[in-house]
């Protein structure tokens, strides 16, 4: 194998890619596309949960049960969960690649980020889609009002 030694001060060039999927490019695109959607989803989330009515003081089980019994907020929350966790996990991967100089450390940290992202995505999705807003045997004053109807 020969190595080309370039003339001094020649402009920076990239090594040619060997083909296959350019994952770093798609990661770069993902950060921008998901970021754009997340601005809308998270600003909406913060507005409804912290600005409307009594804001943070209104948050309790009944409030969340009211929201998660609507398919609109189920989809909103699950899309936000997936986009945000993968966006955050990929961002943390960038920092690990920048600051962890040891290959082993880098593998361990990237693995830990991947594990956290996978576990929390699965947990969050299960919580949203297996959630019962009117669990049996719970005090009625903690449940949303519509639980009393039946």
């Amino acid at each position: 194998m020969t190595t080309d030694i370039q003339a001094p001060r020649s402009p920076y060039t990239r090594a040619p890619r060997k083909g296959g999927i350019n994952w770093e490019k798609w990661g770069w695109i993902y950060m921008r596309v998901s970021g754009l959607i997340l601005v809308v989803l998270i600003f909406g989330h913060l507005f409804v949960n912290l600005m409307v009515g009594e804001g943070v003081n209104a948050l309790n089980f009944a409030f969340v049960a009211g929201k998660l019994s609507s398919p609109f907020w189920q989809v909103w929350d699950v899309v936000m969960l997936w986009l945000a966790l993968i966006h955050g996990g990929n961002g943390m991967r960038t920092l690990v690649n920048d600051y962890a100089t040891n290959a082993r450390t880098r593998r361990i940290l990237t693995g830990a980020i991947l594990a956290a992202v996978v576990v929390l995505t699965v947990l969050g999705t299960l919580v949203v889609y297996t959630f019962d807003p009117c669990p049996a045997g719970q005090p009625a004053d903690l449940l949303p009002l519509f639980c009393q109807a039946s």
Partner: protein
Amino acid sequence: MPQKTAGTLSYQQRTTSRRPAGTLYRGREGMWSWVLHRITGVAIFFFLLVHILDTALVRVSPEAYNAVISTYQTPLMGLGEVALVAAIVFHAFNGLRIILIDFWTPKYHRAMFYVVIALWVITMLAFAPRHLINVFSH
């Protein structure tokens, strides 16, 4: 290229490389927006991990969820929520600035940083007083 005297050479003219490196991220507004984007990003990521776990308590019992969420309604955590929203709003607006730099033009990246700061101040003025009144009048 017009010749200039040594005293008035710009940074880019003094450097020996043909293509000056790091014009977007080295120094001044470009660098500070990058630093803040990283710090706020890490803070938001760790909050997100905790926030998914606390919300998952709705699946355990109403009491468990209410017990944890009531700690978010204390004055100390109320101030923490202002810091969290401040981090999210900066990260969001600076992220839009990065998208504009990448897909539109890097020409106005400094001016856009001050637009980000201005929008951040306006958003925080709309959020912080209302939120703090909610927290401290509870």
